[in-house]
């Protein structure tokens, strides 16, 4: 039998950085030529700043180019950003955007092949092999998550169960009977599955699950520990967004020391979301991505709104690509309450530190008498429900105190009944800002 690789594409993934930068420069120049020729939006943007694609001589020149934003994609809805004729497009996907029109993205055959390769890379990095049975509980449809993982799994040679999202009881039945060994879903759905397992008395050891590939929403280290304990899996993070590619832009190896960002396909910059200045290496800021190989839907300096940090030292696994920290939230998800910057994941971390508490939660911000008030709504579950009022109130007080010491902000913790927090396709909606500015 053929030996399964532990690195899917060592030539690319372990490329010396100097070589990588040369490769990036060449590909960037080509991409700029192509968009300047084929995409009116970029023609306009380049003209505005007086840029000719031939002007770019060095990677650092990229910082002079304008950004692409979600708004640009909306203005060019549906196909305005495509750089190839529709006859070359073989797949359409769409963002899971919750406001306004969705954004439409397209892929050529070659784009699908590179996407598949990127997913195969991070799945292999997480220890998935052709022996595995992959349980894909992302919703199949316009959302890139399910199809991305599906094609990557097939490339590895693993067996795919395209169960799609929802119907947790059925998911569990199939997991037990079909012996799923790898779970693919959002981290919040992984906890929903864990809840249901506990209710039904299914022990994690009775399942064949060994690896979890979780993505599509930010999650904390505490949540990772909870998922690993309750599902009995190694939980890894992966990152991607449909505007840029889908899952596979970055993914963790078993060192869990950040997600390897596929720098042979994308250039990553970190900017200050307010001033839009490129920040020095190692800074925390908004991730900006430029695609290097994409044909149908190239992106120049796309503002992801995801806040993270990149590390450039070679990983213990030998991969040389930059490692991206777990996203800390979104630059547009960040709440400023009484001058304090609050990311939902910070509150999540605190909640998860409280014994027995792995709740669904939601943040509601209100303004009363010109005072901002943050309410943290926590769905009660059997582990944090006490028959005695004294204990129940102590739980609330403890949560409030811990959040206060972590954020320096007084919040009100409100317990709500199970399932009262809205979920969209397994993606929890974390923030409601009701302030009238």
């Amino acid at each position: 039998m053929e030996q399964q690789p532990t690195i899917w594409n060592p030539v690319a993934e372990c490329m010396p950085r100097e070589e990588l930068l040369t490769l990036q420069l060449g590909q960037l120049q080509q991409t700029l030529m192509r968009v300047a020729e084929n995409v009116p939006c970029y023609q306009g943007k380049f003209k505005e700043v007086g840029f000719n694609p031939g002007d770019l001589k060095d990677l650092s020149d990229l910082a002079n180019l304008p950004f692409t934003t979600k708004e640009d994609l909306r203005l060019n809805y549906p196909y305005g950003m495509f750089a190839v004729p529709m006859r070359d497009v073989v797949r359409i996907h769409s963002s899971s955007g919750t406001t306004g029109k969705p954004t439409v993205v397209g892929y050529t055959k070659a784009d699908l092949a590179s996407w598949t390769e990127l997913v195969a890379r991070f799945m292999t990095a997480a220890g998935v092999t052709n022996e595995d049975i992959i349980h894909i509980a992302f919703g199949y449809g316009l959302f890139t998550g399910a199809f991305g993982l599906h094609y990557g799994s097939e490339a590895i040679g693993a067996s795919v169960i395209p169960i799609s999202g929802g119907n947790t009881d059925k998911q569990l039945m199939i997991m037990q009977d079909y012996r799923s060994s790898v779970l693919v879903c959002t981290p919040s759905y992984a906890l929903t599955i864990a809840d249901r397992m506990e209710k039904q008395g299914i022990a994690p050891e009775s399942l064949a699950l060994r690896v979890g590939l979780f993505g599509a929403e930010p999650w904390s280290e505490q949540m990772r520990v909870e998922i690993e304990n309750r599902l009995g899996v190694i939980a890894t993070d992966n990152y991607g967004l449909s505007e840029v590619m889908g899952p596979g832009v970055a993914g963790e190896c078993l060192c869990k020391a950040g997600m390897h960002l596929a720098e042979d396909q994308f250039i990553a910059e970190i900017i200050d979301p307010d001033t839009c200045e490129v920040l020095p290496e190692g800074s925390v800021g908004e991730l900006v991505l430029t695609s290097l190989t994409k044909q149908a839907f190239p992106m120049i300096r796309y503002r992801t709104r995801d806040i993270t940090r990149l590390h450039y030292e070679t990983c213990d696994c030998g991969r040389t690509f930059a490692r991206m920290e777990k996203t800390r939230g979104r630059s547009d998800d960040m709440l400023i309450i009484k001058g304090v910057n609050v990311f939902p994941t910070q509150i999540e971390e605190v909640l998860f530190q409280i014994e027995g508490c792995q709740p669904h939660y939601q943040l509601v911000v209100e303004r009363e008498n010109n005072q901002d008030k943050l309410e943290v709504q926590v769905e009660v579950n059997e582990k944090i429900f006490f028959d005695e009022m004294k204990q129940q109130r102590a739980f609330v007080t403890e949560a409030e105190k811990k959040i206060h010491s972590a954020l320096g902000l007084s919040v009100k913790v409100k317990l709500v009944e199970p399932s009262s927090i809205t979920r969209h396709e397994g993606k929890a909606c974390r923030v409601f800002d009701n302030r009238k500015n």
Partner: protein
Amino acid sequence: MKVEQISIFIENKSGRLAEVSGVLGDAGINIRALSLADTSDFGILRLIVNDTDKAFNVLREHNFTVSKTEVIGVEVPDSPGGLSSLLQTLDKNNINVEYMYAFVERSGDNAVIIFRFDDVDAAIDVLTKNSIRVIEGKKLTSI
């Protein structure tokens, strides 16, 4: 001696109590005794019912957060001072009451007090030694 009580987490919003009693009614479960402890945001509803396990399961199926707790029922004469002497006995013996609630028996001669103690067994011991009648669990759920 002990009887199982069901506790239910209820958000403080209209219609929730009706919902709980509706679920139990539809399942043919009879409520024997009840108490509600509440704050401005939520309440804890405690029930003694004729079929604890069934009530527990049916509420869970309806997505309520429920738990079971052991409590005991004590009979006291339905007359002035009846409760006072009982509580004094408990106090003297350092038995701490977490919470309690009461109802009057159908015959009307005695009141039944449901007690939640932090140490149930010690409490039963003290009550028995002082010749205070602890009601059998079975009898309580079928009153």
